[in-house]
C-alpha cells in the first residue's frame, strides 16, 4: 500500500470537503421524499394521457450521504409525469384560420439585412394598389429568416423585416389594418443548406384575412 500515501492524503482532504458540504446543507435528513411516476424506456414517448401522480422537488430528492446502516430510499423516474393539456378547440380554430388565409407574393431580403431592395419596393407598390382598393382587408406581415442566423436573433431580424415592410406600405398610402409578427427561422419554406434555399427563406410573407 506504499503507493497509496499520496492518494490517502487526497482522500482525507476530500472527506473534509465533504464534511463542509454536509454541514452547509444543514439538517437535511428528509427520507423518501421523491415520488414521481415511473418512466419509460429510451426513445419511447409518453402519450397525452394526462396521468396524474405526485412528485417531489421537480423529481429530485435531496442526497443523503453514505452511511454504514443506510436507510432505504425510494427511487422513481425523475421525468415529469405531466402532459400539458392541449386545447383542441384552439387548435381547430387556428387551423381553420390558416386555411382561410390568402397570400400575396413574398418580399425578399438580402443576407443579414432588413432594408427593402428596389425589387421589394416595386412588388410592394403593386400590392399596395390591391390593398388600397380593398381597405377592409386585414393584412398580416410575417418576417422570416434563413438558417444562418441564431434562433433568437432571427426572431428580431424577422420582426425588423416585417416592420420595414409595414412602414413602406403605409408610406404608399395603405390604410388597411396591419399586424406584424416574426417567425425567425422557425418556419423555413426551403430546407437545403445553400443559397438556392437561403434567399427564399429571407422573406416578408404577406397574408390577407377577412372580407374583401
Amino acid at each position: 500500500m506504499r503507493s497509496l500515501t499520496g492518494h490517502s492524503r487526497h482522500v482525507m482532504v476530500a472527506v473534509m470537503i465533504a464534511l463542509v458540504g454536509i454541514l452547509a446543507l444543514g439538517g437535511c435528513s428528509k427520507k423518501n421524499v421523491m415520488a414521481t411516476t415511473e418512466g419509460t424506456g429510451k426513445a419511447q414517448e409518453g402519450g397525452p394521457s394526462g396521468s396524474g401522480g405526485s412528485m417531489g422537488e421537480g423529481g429530485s430528492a435531496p442526497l443523503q450521504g453514505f452511511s454504514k446502516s443506510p436507510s432505504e430510499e425510494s427511487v422513481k423516474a425523475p421525468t415529469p409525469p405531466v402532459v400539458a393539456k392541449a386545447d383542441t378547440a384552439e387548435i381547430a380554430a387556428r387551423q381553420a384560420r390558416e386555411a382561410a388565409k390568402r397570400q400575396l407574393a413574398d418580399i425578399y431580403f438580402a443576407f443579414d439585412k432588413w432594408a427593402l431592395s428596389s425589387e421589394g419596393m416595386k412588388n410592394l407598390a403593386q400590392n399596395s394598389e390591391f390593398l388600397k382598393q380593398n381597405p377592409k382587408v386585414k393584412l398580416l406581415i410575417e418576417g422570416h429568416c434563413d438558417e444562418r442566423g441564431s434562433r433568437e436573433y432571427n426572431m428580431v431580424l424577422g420582426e425588423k423585416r416585417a416592420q420595414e415592410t409595414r412602414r413602406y406600405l403605409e408610406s404608399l398610402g395603405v390604410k388597411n389594418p396591419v399586424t406584424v409578427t416574426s417567425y425567425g427561422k422557425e418556419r423555413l419554406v426551403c430546407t437545403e443548406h445553400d443559397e438556392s434555399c437561403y434567399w427564399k427563406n429571407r422573406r416578408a410573407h404577406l397574408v390577407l384575412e377577412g372580407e374583401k
Partner: protein
Amino acid sequence: MALAGLAVFAVATGAVEVFIDATRGAIQKIPIAVYSFKSAIPVPGQPPADVLKADLRRSLLFDVADLERLGIRAEVNSQPGPEALQKAGEAGMAVQVWGTLVPRGSQIVMDGTLFESSHGEVGRKRYVGSPGVVRHMAHRLADEIVFHYTGEQGIARSQIAFVSERDGAKELFVMDYDGYNPRRLTFDASLNLAPAWSPDRRRLAFVTYRKGDDPQIEELDLITGARRTLVALPGLNITPEWSPSGEELAFATTKDGNSEIYKVDKYGRRFERLTDHLAADLAPTWSPTGREIAFTSDRGGTPQIYLMSADGTNVRALTYRDQHGSYNTSAVWSPKGNWIAYVCRDERRILKICLISPDGQQWRQLTTGSSNDESPSWSADGRHVAFSSTRNERRDIYMIGADGTGLERLTTSGVFNDDPAWSGS
C-alpha cells in the same frame, strides 16, 4: 491538495463579478474502480455499473479504471474479495465501488458500497424501486459519490428540456441528462420554443405561438400539469430566462416598437423595463448571483454580447466586432459564473459555440467543424454545455465538456431536436 482545488470561490469586486474556478487546469482526478453489480435477476437495459461509470466519467472528477486491464475481475459475487480490493488499491485505485440488485416482490433493491483503499468501507446506499428505474438508482449513486468528494450535487439526476419537431409542429420534450427517457410534454400542434427551467426544476417557461400571431411566454407546472400565460404583451415576447432566485423572469418584448429587455415577477404581474435603445435588445441571461445580466444587442450595427446590472444600469459591451467577429448572440452564463457561452458565427457564416469570461479576458471557440451549432445551455456543475448541432445531418442535441472534450450525442429520434435547456441539480 488537488481535491481542495474543486472548491469554487466567488469574489465580488465592484461592478464586475470575478469568479475563480479552480476546477480548470490540471486537476488530478480520483482513480476509481467500479465492479459489476451482481444481479439476482435479469434487469432490462444498460447494466447499472455501466450507467454509474458513464456518470462518474462525465463528472470529470474521476478516472474510471478498466479493471480487466489491471488484471482484476470486474465480475464479482456480491462484493470483491480482499485480494481484489488489495490489488486494486496497489494499482492506485483510491476509491472502489460495487453493488448488488435483489428482487423484492415487483420491486428491485439496489445496494451500493463506497470503499476507500486506505480506509476501508466509507458507507453504503440502499435504493428500492421498479425495474424501470434501475438507471436512476445508478444516477443517484453517482451523484452521492460526487457529493461525498466535492459537496456538489452532481448532474447525473439532471434533466434536459428541448424542442422537437412533430408533424410540422414544434413541441416541448424533456429527457434525462444522458439522453435516455425522452418524454413529450406538449401536444399543441403549434410552435413551442425556448424552454427555460425554474431553479427549483418545477416549472418550464417557454415561448408559444398557440394563441395567435404574437408569441407569448407561458409556464408549465411539471407537477400539476397546469399551464398559465406569464407574458402576453402586444408584439413578440421571446427569450425567457428565470433569475437564479426563481422570483423573476427576464425576457425580450417588441411592445415598445423594437425589442427591449424586461423582467417580470413570477406571478406575471409586475413588469420592469431594463433596456431603452432603438436597436434590438434580447436574449437575457443572469449571472449566478442574479446581480448581472448578459444580453444580445445590435446597437453597434451587428449583434454582440453586452452586460448590464440587473436593474438595467451600467451597460457595457463584452464582445467586439474587431476582436470576436461580426455576429455574436444568445449568451448563457455558467452557473459557476466563470464563463459565458454564446453563439458565434465564423467567416464561413457557420454558427459555432464560443466561450468568454465575464471580464472579457479569456475567450475560446468551444465547438469546431462545419456543422451549425447553437442554443448552448450549461450543466449545473458548469463543466458541460448542451447545444444543438447539424453535425450528423439532422439537427440533434449534443453535450460537450467546457474544455472541449467528451462530445456526446444525446438525441437520436425525430428529425429536428433543438433548444436544449439543462435543469439544475
